């Protein structure tokens, strides 16, 4: 059977996942590393893992990334 469905991915948890509180605490520093291509995942591996698994935090991340990369009108 297909072993890589969304259900399989949902069931998989990564012990490196830092949770929402820590991810959000450092989100501003993390997002700048991502925006400047500066090895964000190596600096904050637990945040990278968390954002892959947590819908609302990754939504906040996307919003923050858009805010710092979209030019002001």
């Amino acid at each position, binding site marked *: 059977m*297909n*072993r890589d469905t969304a259900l399989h991915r949902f*069931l998989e*948890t990564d012990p490196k996942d830092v949770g929402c509180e820590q991810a959000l605490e450092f989100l501003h520093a993390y997002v*700048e590393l991502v925006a400047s291509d500066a090895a964000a995942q190596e600096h904050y591996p637990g945040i990278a893992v968390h954002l892959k698994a947590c819908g609302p*935090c990754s*939504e906040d991340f996307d*919003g923050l990334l858009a805010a*710092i990369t979209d030019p002001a009108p």
Partner: protein
Amino acid sequence: MELLDPDSAEWVRSLEGTEVAREAAKVRLHAMLLRIARSEVRRRTQPSQISGPELDDVAHQAAADAMVAIIAKVRQFRGDSRFTTWAYKFVIFEVSTKIGRHFWRNPTVPMDAEDWSRLPDRFGLDPACELEWRALVEELHRAVDEVLTDRQRQIFVAIVLNAVPLDALVLELGSNRNAIYKTLFDARRKLRIALVAKGVVDTESSERS
């Protein structure tokens, strides 16, 4: 505190400076927050979900609440990003919370309805291949009954079966995102262990990047 870039240093200096400097900085900050709030509300919603005046209302509230938080916490700014990035984070959080609240005005299903027929669709399991996944879904249902605590089960049902957004559930349960995420995280881990024991999920992880 790390050495601040000139622009960030200027923000901190004015927000902690004389009344005149402070008021001028607040006006600038508010305009910035409002601009970010508007585009963030737009980014997160379909035009059909929210009217123009409503969008503007949410954006204004988010900017005002973020402003209060930023002023209260400006001393906690450590300089580990530009000041503006740090400040934007507050307004993004406010928009996020306010949109979570919006969900409960038009909920599609009650959060505790327990309709397992929705599960395959929620995970994009193809009905044409039901033979491949039926045993897995049946064992999952059994595991939810047998291994989850009442709280874990409540959160699993709301988020997984009923597609209640996590932030909306946070408001409904008067909890916080971290606690709900952690409860669901533990539930996911327990369910996987149970399903591995039943032989319907491999011990090997499906994907590791």
